[in-house]
């Protein structure tokens, strides 16, 4: 038998091609890739696997900064310089807050999500806030304004329309203002603040900027990376197609996490995501306790896994999935 190329060698080459594909292949590279692929079926599989695993790594966003930024020793001088800058911005922020909304600090309610956990929170005005894993916010509602401060992490806001009470998200020294819209804001350690708008539009301003300065408008299907104040030149929002927006926001559908909730409660969490409702036809079954992490957008896969674990039966209807025992 002739010498066979090892799976490991193929994987290495596949990783190189996946990285090239990630930045976009030239025509000439495409031809070379197809030649390479034609040599062995395993290469096709290795490349498909490389890209699937690469896409999968988007979930790294759920890991939190201690894993992503573990090279602290190297970054420390940069961080401390930035901390000083944020310090002065925060001072400006607190002054502005005192003038504009005196009750801010008294009413702020902290909310957090744990590592690997995605939380969807309904606010009192009907707005919905989705917290990505490892996210900290405070929420302060007054008669004049609705204000969320994103301390760290990432959150997606679906804002209920209320002209009388604008909806603000504070992130570092930025203020994102929305009336009725849907957008996400991200504050990750060591990275610029990202604002991404999926519906309507928002305006972004800085607490420290002069009153006369025009805020930056970000429209639906645009995103913008906002660097720290010391590097501030008004950035140009980048346009995305629907697919890209969907992918950028896919963390929201990423995973649902349960720690001993009843199946009844778990199923109602799935209701917010899937088109296929899970219906439990057996009240005793609804009392079973569930622990685990599940793809929120796959109620059917969830129902099947649960059915096998709990010795139940699944019956898939038109829009409903029935579980019984």
């Amino acid at each position, binding site marked *: 038998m002739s010498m066979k190329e090892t799976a490991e060698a193929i994987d290495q080459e*596949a990783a190189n091609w996946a*990285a090239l594909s990630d*930045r976009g292949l030239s025509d000439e590279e495409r031809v070379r890739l197809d030649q390479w692929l034609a040599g062995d079926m395993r290469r096709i599989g290795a*490349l498909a696997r*490389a890209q699937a695993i*690469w896409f999968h790594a988007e979930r790294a966003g759920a890991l939190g900064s201690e894993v*992503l930024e573990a090279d602290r020793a*190297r970054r420390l001088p940069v961080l401390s310089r930035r901390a000083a800058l944020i310090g002065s911005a925060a001072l400006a922020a607190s002054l502005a807050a005192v003038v504009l909304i005196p009750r801010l600090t008294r009413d702020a309610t902290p909310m957090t999500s744990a590592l690997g956990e995605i939380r969807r929170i309904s606010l009192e005005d009907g707005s919905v806030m989705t917290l990505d894993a490892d996210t900290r916010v405070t929420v302060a509602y007054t008669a004049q304004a609705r204000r969320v401060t994103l301390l760290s992490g990432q959150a997606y806001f679906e804002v209920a329309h209320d002209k009388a009470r604008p909806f603000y998200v504070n992130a570092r020294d930025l203020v994102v203002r929305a009336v009725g819209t849907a957008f996400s804001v991200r504050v*990750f350690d060591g*990275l610029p603040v990202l604002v991404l708008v999926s519906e309507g539009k928002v305006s972004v301003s800085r607490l420290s900027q002069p009153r006369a300065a025009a805020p930056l408008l970000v429209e639906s299907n645009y995103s913008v990376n906002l660097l720290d104040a010391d590097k501030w030149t008004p950035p140009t929002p980048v346009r995305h197609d629907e697919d890209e927006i969907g992918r950028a926001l896919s963390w929201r559908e990423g995973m649902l996490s349960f720690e001993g909730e009843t199946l009844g409660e778990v199923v109602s969490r799935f209701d917010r995501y899937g088109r296929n409702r899970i219906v439990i036809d057996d009240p005793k079954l609804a009392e079973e306790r569930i622990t685990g992490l599940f793809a929120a957008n796959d109620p059917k896969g969830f129902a099947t896994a649960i059915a096998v674990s709990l010795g139940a039966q699944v019956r898939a209807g038109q829009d409903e999935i029935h579980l019984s025992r």
Partner: protein
Amino acid sequence: MHPLDPQRSRWLTAHVVPLEPELRRWLKHYAGLSSWDIDDLIQETYAVLATRESVDDIRNPRTYIYQIAKSLVLQGLRRSKVVRIEAVSDIEKFDVQSETLSPERHAMGRDELKRVADAIRAMPPQTRRAFTLRRVEGLSQREIAAAMGLAESTVEKHIARAIQQLMKQFGRGGKSARTASMSEHAADLQEDPAPNVDERDRRGH
């Protein structure tokens, strides 16, 4: 279908990547494959799924993926000169559904996240930075080059290394890592005339 088709990749990401560690364990314990045969077979399984005309008709991805792996194992056994009757019957007897009962299935989401975390921890600092900017922050490779003050071709290499690290991490079947020295040792082994269940090696026929 081209193996880089993004929609197909998404499907593979959703259905095959999370299943891979479990599938590898199954190939080792029930089909009795050696670790290199498992690597080959995983690549072949992805190839079948990547080149399939459509995946819309696959109603139960998990069962289907096992079916493919199983038929590839059987093909391999039929091709080899020495057919291990006991291996074939082991596979035929094995019911994919019963594997679903194992409690580890519930821990899978966390296990997957842990694999990604382990891969990131194993990356050199520059690679990890490039990875974070690309996968978490969503900057393009060109933007990363500008942000890190590197040539674009260097960023490309960091990304390739990151992908390789992730592939390695998902290539580890069990909870404990398969070390390089172990697989090198396995590579030196000749066909054992009386193999034990875990170390059957079909290679060389």
